[in-house]
């Protein structure tokens, strides 16, 4: 029987409580905010800033996943739906102490290639949406009109972290913001779409 949502919540709580090293969230929020401002000044292009934040998040995510696996002792997820539950209830909880809600979506487009329809390729395109009720990064933040019109996703680093972490466990995903309260939207949502499962590959150069 698959682990229920409630059990994941409990696991997340336990890991958070078991964390010995915690830092003040304000310190984090202030530093991140100052970083975004500096990047905007340096690149002068909001799209580029979004990309750089995502890239930074990717690098962080590739390291966080190891920490996460070591502490959570969770096994492989049965399907992408379960991945979404674990990311929201255990992942976000143990690192940021927040519990986003998860909404699962059906695959948006069915693969029409003639390859054999294994259970894995059938779920490519599966999505889940994380709705963040609170965002520790955006504690003291108000975006100016210019940034909103320019298309800045302030917390884009989170998308990168999700992408980086999941790539290290053989899932290639696309994570993007679809709405953000900082831009005046109703809620803060990240959509995560599975592109494909990655095969374990022998590194280039080894024969």
């Amino acid at each position, binding site marked *: 029987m698959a682990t229920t949502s409630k059990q994941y919540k409990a696991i997340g709580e336990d890991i958070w409580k078991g964390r010995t090293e*915690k830092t003040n969230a*304000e310190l*984090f929020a*202030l530093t991140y*905010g100052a970083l975004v401002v*500096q990047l905007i000044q340096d690149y002068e292009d909001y799209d580029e800033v979004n990309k750089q934040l995502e890239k930074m998040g990717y*690098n962080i995510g590739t390291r966080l996943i190891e920490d996460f696996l070591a502490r959570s002792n969770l096994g492989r997820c049965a399907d992408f739906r379960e991945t979404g539950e674990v990311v929201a209830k255990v992942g976000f909880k143990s690192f940021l*102490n927040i519990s986003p809600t998860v909404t699962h979506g059906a695959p948006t487009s069915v693969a029409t290639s003639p390859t054999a329809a294994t259970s894995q390729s059938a779920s490519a395109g599966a999505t889940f949406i994380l709705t963040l009720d609170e965002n*520790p990064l955006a504690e003291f933040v108000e975006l100016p009109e210019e940034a909103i019109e320019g298309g800045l996703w302030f917390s884009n680093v989170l998308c990168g972290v999700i992408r980086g972490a999941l790539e290290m466990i053989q899932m290639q995903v696309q994570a993007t913001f679809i709405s953000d309260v900082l831009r005046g939207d109703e809620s803060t949502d990240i959509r995560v779409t599975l592109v494909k499962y990655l095969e374990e590959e022998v590194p280039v150069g080894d024969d």
Partner: protein
Amino acid sequence: MATSASTSVAGNLAALADPPARSVDGPAVDYFLIEMVNTLRASSAVAVTRTKKIEQEMTEAGLLFPPQQGPPAVPSKRDSMASTSSKTAGADGKTVVDDEEEALRLRLESIGMHVGANIAERLCHDRGLFADTLDAIKFICKELWVACWDKQVDNLRTNHRGVYVLQDNAFKPIQRISSWQGRADALRRSKMYAAMPAGIIKGALSRLGFQAVVVPEITTLPQCTFQVKLPKGS
């Protein structure tokens, strides 16, 4: 009954006015700070290149004297770029690298100043101004250090003429730095990670009303000292 109700209301209001500090995971923030240095290194390179290109275009158009001959005619919008034009021509490659390192250091310091100022404000919001520089430095050594790096400063020295030296024998941001190229390389790389903490100290002091110059120094990992120069006469 009435008194207990009012104290519980007062208690709720107090909690609302001064909410308990939220926390996030320590290691996650550490990874973030490490990656932040890399991200800023890339962005400062982009910014330096762009500024140099503009300077070159203006020089070619005759609007600007080449850097060797004097200060630039155009004031740069961002203060952090002012240092690039003061470098005299050395071996070209070296100058560019120095400029980029300096640009990165300035960015990290300015982020630190923003963080330090706000943290100091939060920590001091219910106390009066500091009587003199020594009290402010003691606040830095104890409360600020604990808020940022979970411990207090190990050693404080002063020459009683406005120069203080704060020593931390196991400075958190550089505690776990190592390099596969050896200790000397690790030492060289660690200097950049002390730039933001120096900024935090500088920003905190400036919010408390003291203009200071803060210089970090690392001779052996993980020990770090900060030399704080305050103007004479608080």
